[in-house]
């Protein structure tokens, strides 16, 4: 049940055809796990918080550095040297006090991932490296939790939504690893991709629209062009082949 304040706060999105109070109540009941409080995690957390998800858990183990500030808009000059989790929590709790925010300073690993995502309805991949993305992908598949992927490089970004057992997973999409982990990026790219991930999360929770499943969306900021590529479930995928029977 929505309160009077909530009805007013979310009035403009409740007005959307197919959204309504029912959609807002679904958002209020949703528990979203966000892996990363950096370039992607900043817009994802801000917009999901603004949209009124019920519980948000955000996990990161880094500290704020000067070189983060061109894109990680949750962190400001005064936050340099602080843990990203403390810095993020301070801003996020001021944006929407109606959302329960759990901020955890921890590195996501194969050992702790299942415990970290336990009891959450959705996982947003806002990481900055592929190995951890694969760890999250496996955990999402194992726990049957929808997984919302996004990644950036320079002016280019990508997004795809994964529904375990039904659609291609991150490992079906990518077979290898990237040489080197330091990547160029301008802040507007994760802003675009993070907002696309947040859009997918909201659509999934509310149950409207068509999800970005089995489709890799490529955003080319330099030419301001969006391209879609079809992604098929790989029957030999080392992460999801055991889920083939659920199709």
């Amino acid at each position, binding site marked *: 049940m929505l309160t009077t304040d909530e009805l007013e706060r979310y009035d403009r999105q409740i007005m959307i055809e197919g959204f309504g109070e029912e959609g807002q109540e679904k958002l209020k009941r949703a528990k979203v796990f966000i892996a990363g409080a950096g370039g992607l995690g900043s817009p994802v957390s801000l917009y999901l918080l603004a949209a009124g998800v019920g519980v948000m858990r955000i996990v990161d183990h880094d500290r704020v550095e000067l070189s983060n500030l061109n894109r990680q808009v949750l962190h400001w000059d005064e936050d340099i040297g602080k843990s990203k989790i403390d810095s993020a929590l301070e801003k996020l709790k001021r944006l929407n006090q109606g959302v329960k925010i759990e901020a955890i300073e921890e590195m996501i690993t194969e050992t702790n991932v299942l415990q970290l995502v336990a009891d959450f309805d959705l996982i947003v991949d806002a990481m900055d490296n592929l190995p951890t993305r694969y760890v999250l992908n496996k955990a999402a598949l194992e726990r049957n939790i929808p997984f919302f992927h996004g990644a950036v490089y320079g002016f280019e970004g990508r997004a795809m939504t994964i529904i375990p057992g039904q659609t291609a997973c991150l490992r079906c999409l990518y077979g290898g690893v990237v040489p080197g982990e330091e990547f160029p990026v301008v802040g507007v790219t994760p802003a675009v991709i993070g907002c696309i991930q947040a859009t997918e999360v909201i659509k999934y929770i509310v149950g409207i629209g068509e999800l970005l499943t089995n489709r890799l969306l*490529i955003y080319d900021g330099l030419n301001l062009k969006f391209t879609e590529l079809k992604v098929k479930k790989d029957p030999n995928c080392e992460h999801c082949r055991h889920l083939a029977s659920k199709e």
Partner: protein
Amino acid sequence: MSITIDVSTFFRKYTNGQQVVEVYGNTVGRCLDDLVKQFPGIKQGLFDESGKLQNYIDIYVNGESAYPEVLAKPVKDGDELHIIFLIGGG
């Protein structure tokens, strides 16, 4: 007619910033050979020392993955190839 290759941003440093390159060939492998002929520097980004496609690259033909026999995948005039470099930044 010919085949066009849409080069993802990472590889444009090898193509003088060109996003779309016109190539000729009847398989993905032949098209990539033609691309390398036009832009020799791209070879190191596309292939490993044994001549295999790097494992961080995917090729799509008309929006669909060319996996698993990527280089042998037949193509025809008017087809569009995408070279996708695996990215993980966030």
